[in-house]
């Protein structure tokens, strides 16, 4: 094997081991709040990676992520909630068969959540992926809204506006980071293969891609469906992490948060997405202080709810104005890059 490749594989292995070690340490030493943030980071990275595949690498401006997440979250929750518990929780109307009795272990439930979301992604993709640019954005946004309205108005499946409560919290650091690593693996493999080259070619110049024999519709549909799968997985993990979901959770703001991570990290950069996923999830929590009353130099500023999002919107505005390609642009951190950098430093 190429020694460089061997070195990179070894370093990847070491990085994963370090992550595992870090998680062990975190579990033993950090409080629940910090662990919860770490969990959210992993989930947001999964969600942002899947959107980056759709938007960053294939150039499909999709705003339907909240919809796929909702599908994933409800599928998983209904699968892991005990049947007896479902009967008592559904206050409006009794749950419909087979939703009332279906049950599966957590891993199967998450995979099913991904598959159902992917199926919906495929169905919605068939008509809307023929659209381009802004039209696609509008159509997918509409789709996400439809899903939310359906969730609100199908009490026998979703318990309507009351939502699902007491979802077993199987989701923990191991599950979340395991899925996060799997998502990373899949997306890296995809975009580094010649299949991925074709996806990027469609993004760069669709006409030329078609002339080169690429069935652009098929490629877009595959990319969109895989993206929907991982959005569903992310939604499932989130549901089990928060233990309660309701339709209000899946409003556009959720898509916006994910989109913000992708744009901040850089469209078409995997490491950028990971980096931005960490930074933004931490900031989303840390910035809560701006919503609390602040005492400064003897003056007290009353807390304004929603101030966090104002700060974020401003931050996004600045990113788009001054660094519209995001933190990383389309570049990636890689072992090769780090070694070249160190070598240059050494020579200087």
């Amino acid at each position, binding site marked *: 094997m190429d020694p460089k490749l061997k070195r990179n594989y070894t370093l990847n292995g070491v990085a994963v081991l370090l992550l595992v070690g870090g998680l062990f340490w975190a579990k033993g030493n950090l409080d629940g709040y910090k662990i919860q943030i770490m969990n959210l980071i992993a989930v947001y990275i999964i969600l942002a990676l899947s959107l980056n595949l759709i938007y960053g690498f294939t150039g499909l401006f999709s705003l339907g992520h909240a919809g796929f997440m909702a599908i994933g979250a409800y599928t998983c929750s209904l699968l892991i909630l005990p049947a007896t518990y479902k009967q008592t929780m559904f206050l409006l109307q009794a749950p419909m068969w087979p939703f009332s009795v279906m049950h599966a272990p957590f891993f199967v439930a998450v995979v099913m959540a991904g598959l159902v979301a992917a199926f919906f992604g495929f169905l919605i993709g068939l008509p809307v992926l023929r659209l381009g640019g802004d039209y696609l954005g509008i159509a997918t946004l509409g789709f996400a809204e439809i899903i939310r309205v359906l969730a609100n108005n199908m009490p026998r499946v979703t318990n309507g506006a009351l939502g699902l409560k007491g979802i077993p919290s199987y989701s923990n650091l191991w599950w979340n980071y395991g899925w996060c690593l799997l998502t990373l693996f899949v997306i890296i493999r995809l975009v580094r*293969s010649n299949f991925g080259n074709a996806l990027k070619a469609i993004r760069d110049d669709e006409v030329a891609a078609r002339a080169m024999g690429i069935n652009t519709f098929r490629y877009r549909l595959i990319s969109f469906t895989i993206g929907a799968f991982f959005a569903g997985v992310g939604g499932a993990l989130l549901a089990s992490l928060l233990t309660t979901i309701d339709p209000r959770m899946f409003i556009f703001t959720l898509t916006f948060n994910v989109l913000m991570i992708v744009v901040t990290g850089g469209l078409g950069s995997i490491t950028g997405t990971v980096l931005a996923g960490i930074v933004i999830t931490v900031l989303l929590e840390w910035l809560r202080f701006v919503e609390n009353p602040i005492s400064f130099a003897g003056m007290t500023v009353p807390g304004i709810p929603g101030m966090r999002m104002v700060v974020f919107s401003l931050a996004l505005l600045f990113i788009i104005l001054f660094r519209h390609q995001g933190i990383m642009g389309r570049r990636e951190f890689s072992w090769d890059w780090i070694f070249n950098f160190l070598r240059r430093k050494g020579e200087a």
Partner: protein
Amino acid sequence: MLNNDAALETEALTIRFGGLVAVRDFSVRIPRGSIVGLIGPNGAGKTTCFNMVTGFYKPTEGRILFNGQDITGWLPHKVCSAGIARTFQNIRLFHTASVIQNVMVGARIRQSTTWWHALLNLPSYWKEEREVREKALYLLDAVGLKQFADEESGGLPYGAQRRLELARALATDPSFLLLDEPAAGMNPNETQELMGFVKDIRNRFNLTILLIEHDMRVVMGICEHIWVLDYGVTIAEGRPEEIRSNQKVIEAYLGEEYVRDA
């Protein structure tokens, strides 16, 4: 000069855009292994003909036969997989991709492994990806761009971008190549080189080549047969020396200046 073995044949191709007839009754018969040209003033409908043959436009009337098979109305990727590749008048590279990735995208259509092979880590997948890379390097070598393989394609000089577009088209394993103004923007030296190069790839890859060109030295120098379009109508066809002396062509396209030089 036309023998029976036609690579591409069009029968009375006509396309209308609303009330405008962009091309009327375009009929050509291109012998296998030849280099032929399509010329005409700006807006005569040459690129429209290319777009019909490659499936980007659906002709209103007429038929396109490729190796005897009716490919009228096929989608572009189908046409490409049948063995017709093209380049563009305004270079259309995948500008964020590296030089070699551009060529690899062209080779994608002949790959049998796909995305889930990549995920399953199958040996057949790795073998084929390696082969695609080697094929791309071979083609880059053929067009003299091997040393730029890992550069970003958008940064290449103009002439090199044209050659890269050609390498990308060749990567689809075509038997028929459509070149849309390959010499556009080239200096006389580069043009001279290009002529030798086009002949060379024809022989090396067993191609039939149809080219649109404004540079008369290229057209007269390498084309064995020429069709002349004006306002969408074929006003003349024949060998270069026949075209050169055709009064209609001179009037429509070549102009007095060319007559004087000749």
